[in-house]
């Protein structure tokens, strides 16, 4: 088990924190490397589902980064650090819970063969996708079928993320109209 940090370590981290606020990249790297394991342990103790730990840990570091200007170097670092960490953990878990509530477990979805028998949803989706203009179709395919991130898909299409969002959005609208028209 990693020993708890002593006062000297906290003071040294507070100094690093003050330097990173002034833009010292090396101090920032050292600070995150030294404090990271403590925060990781903090997150691991608070998150029941261990698969979520790396994601929550990322969230903690990102929040720490965004809130770094609020640390006052004349004050102890611990309360600031753990307040940010505790709230980030709670926020991340809350968001994950909300997302999980809206998610449909895959085991509850009917098999694709069954869909085909029942109403040919796969075929209809395929036709609706095929009916899209080239740009919109490619945007939808990259994002929803190949599962690329916005940045990756935009790079592959050689357009900006904003333009990709517009194309994908128009594609979804077009498909919705096509599918609803068929449903009537």
């Amino acid at each position: 088990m990693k020993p708890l940090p002593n006062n000297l370590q906290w003071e040294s981290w507070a100094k690093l924190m003050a330097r990173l606020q002034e833009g010292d990249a090396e101090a920032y790297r050292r600070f995150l490397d030294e404090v990271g394991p403590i925060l990781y342990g903090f997150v691991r103790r608070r998150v029941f589902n261990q698969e979520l730990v790396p994601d929550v840990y990322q969230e903690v570091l990102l929040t720490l980064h965004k809130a770094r200007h609020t640390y006052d170097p004349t004050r102890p670092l611990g309360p600031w650090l753990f307040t940010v960490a505790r709230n980030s953990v709670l926020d991340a878990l809350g968001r994950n819970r909300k997302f999980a509530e809206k998610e449909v477990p895959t085991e509850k979805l009917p098999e694709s063969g069954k869909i085909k028998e029942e109403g040919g949803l796969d075929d209809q989706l395929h036709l609706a996708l095929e009916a899209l203009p080239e740009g919109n179709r490619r945007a939808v395919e990259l994002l929803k079928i190949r599962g690329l991130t916005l940045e990756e898909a935009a790079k592959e299409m050689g357009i900006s993320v904003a333009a990709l969002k517009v194309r994908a959005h128009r594609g979804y609208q077009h498909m919705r109209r096509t599918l609803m028209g068929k449903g009537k």
Partner: protein
Amino acid sequence: MRKRTKKKSGAGNAAGIHAALVGRLVSETRPVRRTLTPGLQWALWFLLSGGSVGFFLATLGPQAAGAILGNLPAVLFLGAALLGSALAAWEAISSSLPGRQTGTLYRIGAVGLVLVLMAMPFLFFPSAPGGFDLMGCCSSGWSCIRGCCLLGFLPWVLMVFILSRNASLRPFWTGLWAGLSAFLLGAFAIQLHCPSWETGHMFVAHLLPVALLTFPAALAGAYWFSRWRK
């Protein structure tokens, strides 16, 4: 449709995730302007808000000092309103700075003071001869209701401006305390102007607007004070 980033899972990836994230964060390093200390923020808000409210009050014309100073419940009421505003402002500022949150006792004390303030018109001041008439108080006290809103609005904007640089981890509560502090200051100022010390009027025209405006202020705060995380 919601965008989801690709996730790595398992503790084994921890070091890799840490290294990648640290690399990204370090590459974004630049000097940051530190936030002012809570004391300075509080003093700045009180000074600016007090100045603006004082200016408008001077324009409206305060009631004679003798009418207030000779009336102990009136002095207590005004003192409680000002103290409540100051405590709420401190709470709003503290709640928006990580590691500077006040304790539960402080919050209980502040809420208790506001509740006592709300009850004071019923405890220490005479009611109108015809009894409590909500609609009558609303129509006769319309100028006070409007004045309370207007006098509290500028302190609220100032508070939002000051808090925008902070990093609130509980934006709704920060917004609620910010609204309470600003509109209590407005109620304090309007009570200095309005010569009526009658229960119904004080409650409906001076205190109820505070309660009603604090809630939308909290909702606005929930949105505005969470922007720093996006």
